[in-house]
């Protein structure tokens, strides 16, 4: 079944040729079994400090009320919703890598999907923080759920904000399930590697969460079906989530918010920023934990290509918005877009354009796609640019409303900034804990793409008759093993 990659047309090995199952188990598991390197501790303490800042900022918000933020008429939404959309967007790459690339049989995903899924979960946690605190009165958060209450009041199912709750809540739940289902076999691996009595606690904890997994083929059969169904569910889900987030804006009649391209444009932007974040994180982890054999240049190059594609899609959406703003003949619409480019927030607009549209264009060239420091810097730029995209959409549309008398300019307060920095702290704290204690690369899946995972490996070598059982339906389950990109 599987042959090596066809190198003459540019296909490459995804894992170092000759890698054994044992090597893969060892190289990934060892990270969770040995004490953390100093770099981990430095990063963790830094992240935890920022997490503390988040606690302080949010505590102060609860104590004083939402007035501690810079939001004010006419900019009633600012950093809170910007951060929310930014974080949700970052989550999307995880699902894209785990689900969409799985369905499209892009086997290169196996080295990075666990990583990206974890990132999704933590990013969505950070995102969920903001709707939770954005009114400053957290004890009313239950208003967002359809619970019977003494007010006889139900949430308004015609409100995009409620759709957000359902969309992001579902997204978080499904991502968590997806991640956990993928983890079960690997947790069993970690469980079975605990041999000495000193590892008793580890054994119990990993054993508990491994649910008694014993690699049974009768289990694998249902497991793989479940995994595929989850992937198939996550794919439309990931589209829906950022589409629903975009509805927060696009269902309104606010110039600059109400354009029909918002749903796919937001999704493209989300995937774009998500890949940038995966790239930033994985490049660091690759250096710190020496994962060069598992996360190869092929992965980096492919991710850069996806960033180029999604960045261009975002550029397409910017262009269409601008074109239609003019073409519509609607003076308000036109004003908003001219104001974005030339008005008081033009600095933000041009930051966005240069980070999101111009900078990924470097990835047309292989020299830049395969340059690690360059990729790292650019991924940071993209993250910044995508934050500014949400800022530009939200703040520049609001700061000039229909009544010129109420025009204003938004200034963030220290609490705004601390909350945002703190959410980064929350994200990285969780992420570092994940790296430390959970296999950061899907062990079982990676083994499945090695050449020797194919039961016919080294048997017939292309001589068996391919055509006789063509039309017999194959029975469920196994990924065609091929340790190469593309399928």
């Amino acid at each position, binding site marked *: 079944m599987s042959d090596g990659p066809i190198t003459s047309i540019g296909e490459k090995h995804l894992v170092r040729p000759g890698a054994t*199952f*044992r090597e893969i*188990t060892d190289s990934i598991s060892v990270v969770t079994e040995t004490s953390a390197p100093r770099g981990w501790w430095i990063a963790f303490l830094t992240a935890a400090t920022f997490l503390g800042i988040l606690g302080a900022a949010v505590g102060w918000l609860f104590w004083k009320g939402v007035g501690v933020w810079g939001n004010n008429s006419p900019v009633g939404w600012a950093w809170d919703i910007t951060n929310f959309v930014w974080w949700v967007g970052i989550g999307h790459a995880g699902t894209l890598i785990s689900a969409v690339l799985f369905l499209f049989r892009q086997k290169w995903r196996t080295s990075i999907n666990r990583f990206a899924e974890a990132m999704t979960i933590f990013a969505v946690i950070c995102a969920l923080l903001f709707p939770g605190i954005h009114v400053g009165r957290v004890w009313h958060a239950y208003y967002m759920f*359809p619970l019977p209450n003494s007010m*006889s*009041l*139900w*949430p308004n*199912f*015609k*409100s995009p904000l409620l759709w957000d709750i*359902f*969309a992001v*809540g579902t997204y978080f*739940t499904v991502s968590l*399930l*997806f991640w956990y*289902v993928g983890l079960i*076999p690997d947790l069993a*691996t970690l*469980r*079975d*590697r605990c041999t000495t009595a000193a590892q008793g606690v580890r054994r119990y904890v990993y054993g508990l969460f491994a*649910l*008694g997994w*014993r*690699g*049974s*083929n*009768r*289990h*694998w*059969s*249902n497991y*793989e*079906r*479940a995994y595929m*169904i*989850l992937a198939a*569910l996550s794919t439309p*889900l990931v589209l*829906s989530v950022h589409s*629903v987030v975009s*509805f927060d804006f696009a269902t309104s009649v606010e110039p600059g918010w109400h354009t029909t391209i918002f749903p796919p444009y937001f999704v493209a932007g989300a995937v774009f920023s998500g890949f940038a974040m995966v790239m930033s994180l994985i490049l660091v982890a690759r250096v710190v934990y020496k994962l060069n054999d598992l996360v190869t240049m092929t992965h980096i190059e492919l991710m850069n290509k996806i960033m180029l594609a999604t960045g261009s899609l975002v550029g397409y959406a910017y262009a269409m918005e601008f074109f239609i703003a003019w073409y519509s003949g609607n003076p308000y619409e036109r004003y908003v877009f001219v104001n974005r480019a030339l008005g008081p927030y033009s600095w933000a607009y041009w930051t966005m354009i240069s980070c999101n549209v111009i900078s990924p264009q470097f990835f047309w060239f292989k020299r830049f796609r395969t340059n690690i420091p360059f990729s790292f810097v650019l991924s940071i730029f993209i993250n910044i640019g995508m934050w500014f995209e949400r800022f530009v959409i939200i703040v520049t549309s609001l700061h000039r409303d229909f009544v010129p008398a109420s025009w204003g300019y938004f200034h963030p307060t220290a609490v705004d900034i601390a909350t945002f920095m703190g959410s980064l702290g929350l994200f990285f704290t969780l992420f570092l804990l994940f790296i430390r204690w959970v296999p950061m690369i899907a062990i*079982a*899946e990676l*083994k*499945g793409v090695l050449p*020797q*995972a194919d*039961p*016919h*490996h080294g*048997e017939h070598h292309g001589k068996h008759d391919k055509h006789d059982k063509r039309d017999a339906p*194959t*029975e*469920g*389950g*196994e*990924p065609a093993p091929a340790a190469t990109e593309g399928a």
Partner: protein
Amino acid sequence: MSDTHNEPQPERERRPVLLLAEFDSAGSVLHAAEALRDAGYKSFDAHTPFPVHGMDRAMGMSDSRLGWIVAAMATAGFTTAVALITWANHISYPFVVGGKPPLSIPAYAPVTFELTVLFSAFGAVFGMLGLNKLPRHHHPVFFSDRFRSATDDRFFLSVEREDPKFDLTKTRELLEGAKATHVEVIEDEVP
């Protein structure tokens, strides 16, 4: 199952419950499974670090029924969402917001979609666990010390005592003939 585990219970008899054969490659375990299937065994299982392509057919298994569970849950999610929205915004508290009548079908779409997906995902995960009878933290195969490499780089076949063709010597011979590198008998208390 309900016995207390800590105190030794000498009156309980330990009997062979499993034959566990070890293999060193995906190919050999696949062929051994085919051999068992062809010999008419039913209650046996393969244990592999990753799903082995073609093993379902080699073991003569039927297709997973998970899809039906998910379909049922999807229907349940869809119905729940439609009922919830209709009840909340059309029957319990009919309400005109933003010029939209209480019964606004297009506005149903987002939440209905999300709940359908949510329920389906629950169906997929918990259905999978249910079909697999997991979590099951205690299992006879874990009595084997060699079995720990089933999640690393070794491949196992286990034949259960319940199988009508189970026979300590004949089955062992069959497994050893199918290139098993090691065969052991797992004993357990039989209630």
